[in-house]
């Protein structure tokens, strides 16, 4: 039995050795593969960071007297000042109708609209809850998330101050009612980065192995390997594993960047994250291997990689939420490994999900990985060089 297994993977260690030498020799390409995702993450991450300050904001203040030179009432001016001082909002314009307010948002000039009702002052004075509507442009998910959170905090803060100033009160004086326009599924930057890591890992791992077999086909060395006793599984695993360790290292670096530079807290278990990530890496490397076995030339392998990667990115829910996809695409997204990985990432990092919630995703990925690898091995065995 043991001998049978050993025979099944014959040649593994030799191929493993050879591939690590290839990696050392081609250190430039390896460095690029390692560094590019980090640079992409920094650029994309930094872009998010700058967006959540000085968001263009338009105000429609119905309170106060229309013919006074100043806008709104003293209480509403106080609230607006709070918004301005938070540094998150930049009030650039006051408007005087719902239509104008809407126009600013639709045109994209404003990402946030603050609407203070006619009875804002009166309600505050009576000790009733005064509602302020904050309309957020959800098409920019990172802005939307921050705007909603900060507006809510300002409302609470202001209420707290009012309560403290007046003593006992029955209700919350100011209630901020956020309304996200254009994109009901508001996502914060924390939502963005974990998905980004899954996508970046997908891109580098698939590409790395996609070339590995077809390159030997072109060079003629595969012909030589075919007359050795190496077995398909030994060959494929021997080629996959060095890249697997490299991918795992890269993953750690990206996670570190996410945590330290972009301050995205990880709510769940890091060990579970690494374990599930390993399975995901394995699936991607196996997919690359299948591409490589099928392809006749390196150019063909490149095209196949892209035709797998791009739909994966769109279907995975990284950009468009899966829930809003048409039924067909939703069904297709079930066959995309990144779908499960993004769920795992968001689950562990954001929601603090554990093994209980995520074991099925991990199992599906493992089944996918083994299935794809066996398929590639079968294809390889039937391949005529």
């Amino acid at each position, binding site marked *: 039995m043991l001998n049978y297994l050993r025979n099944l993977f*014959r040649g593994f260690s030799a191929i493993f050795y*050879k591939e690590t030498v*290839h990696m050392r020799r081609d250190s430039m390409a390896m460095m690029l593969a390692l560094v590019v995702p980090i640079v992409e993450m920094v650029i994309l991450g930094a872009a998010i960071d700058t967006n959540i300050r000085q968001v263009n904001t338009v105000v429609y203040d119905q309170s106060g007297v229309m013919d006074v030179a100043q806008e709104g009432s003293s209480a509403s001016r106080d609230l607006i000042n709070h918004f301005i001082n938070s540094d998150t909002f930049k009030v650039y314009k006051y408007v005087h109708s719902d239509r104008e307010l809407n126009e600013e948002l639709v045109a994209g000039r404003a990402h946030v609209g603050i609407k203070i009702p006619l009875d804002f002052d009166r309600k505050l004075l009576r000790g009733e809850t005064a509602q302020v509507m904050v309309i957020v442009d959800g098409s920019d998910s990172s802005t939307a998330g921050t705007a909603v959170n900060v507006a809510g905090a300002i409302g609470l803060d202001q209420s707290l101050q009012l309560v403290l100033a007046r003593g006992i009160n029955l209700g919350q004086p100011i209630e901020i009612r956020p309304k996200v326009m254009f994109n009901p599924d508001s996502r914060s930057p924390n939502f963005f980065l974990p998905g980004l890591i899954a996508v970046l890992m997908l891109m580098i791992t698939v590409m790395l192995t996609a070339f590995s077999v077809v390159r030997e086909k072109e*060079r003629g*060395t595969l012909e030589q390997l075919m*007359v*050795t006793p190496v077995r398909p599984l030994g060959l494929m695993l021997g080629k996959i594993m060095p890249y697997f360790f490299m991918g795992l290292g890269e993953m750690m670096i990206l996670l570190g960047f996410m945590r330290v530079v972009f301050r995205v807290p990880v709510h769940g278990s890091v060990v579970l994250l690494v374990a599930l990530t390993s399975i995901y890496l394995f699936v991607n490397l196996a997919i690359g291997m299948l591409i490589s076995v099928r392809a006749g030339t390196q150019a063909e392998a490149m095209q196949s990689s892209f035709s797998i990667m791009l739909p994966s990115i769109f279907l995975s829910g990284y950009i468009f939420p899966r829930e809003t996809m048409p039924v067909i695409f939703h069904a297709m997204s079930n066959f995309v490994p990144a779908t499960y990985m993004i769920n795992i990432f968001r689950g562990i990092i954001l929601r603090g999900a554990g093994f209980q919630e995520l074991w099925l995703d991990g199992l599906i990925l493992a089944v996918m990985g083994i299935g794809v690898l066996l398929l590639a091995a079968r294809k390889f065995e039937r391949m*005529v*060089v």
Partner: protein
Amino acid sequence: MTALVTSGNNPAPANASNLAICAQKLTRKFGDFTAVDQASMTVERGEVFGFLGPNGSGKTTMIKMLTGILPITSGDATVAGIDVRKDPEGVRQRIGYMSQRFSLYDDLTVAENLRFYGRIYGLRGTTLDEKIQQTIERNALQPYLDRLAARLSGGWKQRLALGCSMLHDPSIMFLDEPTAGIDPVARRKLWDLLFDLSGHGITFFVTTHYMDEAERCSHLAYIYYGQIIADGTPDQLRDLPEASPAGTRRFEIDAPQVTSALRTARELPYLKSATIFGRSIHALVEENVTQQDIDRDLRARGVQPQEIRPLTATLEDVFVELTYKKQAKEASRA
């Protein structure tokens, strides 16, 4: 099997233990196309077996079947005493293979290439080190150990490739056009090495296009569009009646301006065929024609032959004649 021309000195595989390779009615089809058609051959241990044939005639397909890479459509093959169909991996453990492309890893050094090929054949630890050292010494590779394979010249690449493919002490070596594109000195050295190794009992199965290499082989077979049409020692092949068709004889004619002389010679009514070799003409003529006849008739047409001498058929002549015969047969069938 139709029209197989053999030397007759091709005993049935009774003494199978002494055979390195035994193929019986080996056939490979790709869809409707038959790449190898019921090819039978036997190669004894220690032979240097030359396998010849034009490009696309099935040489490589034959090698791939014998090495267990390509499934056999029908027929049987035993290599190194193992049934290729039953245990292709067992066969691969006992054979070595070197292609004309010298399949080395360009971005690995000489030492790394040796280490890799040793390990893929399951060599480990001290055995591996010893084998590598032995190969380095045998091929004088010591000065190049840390050089990338890409930086080696053709001859050295060939030595390294041969060394890599022989690390595991194979009993049979398959060499697919091993001398394509290397210089004459390296070519000569390789053949000396092959004979040296064959003296130690290693069997060589060599494909080549060079006729002078074919002459050196102890056993030859010629494959033409999937069928083996000749099989025997070089001498046996030269003596084949098909090579020198009945009622003909060969002459070598030395003449100045050999090209125009050839044109003139082709006007002679009794000339069957003629071709140029260097600065002379090889002519196949009717049996009753003498040197004097040719000399007289050429001079009458303004060509002054310097010397005319009888000629035995070269291997090239043999293969050309056999190919013509085969083509004529195919044509008449169609």
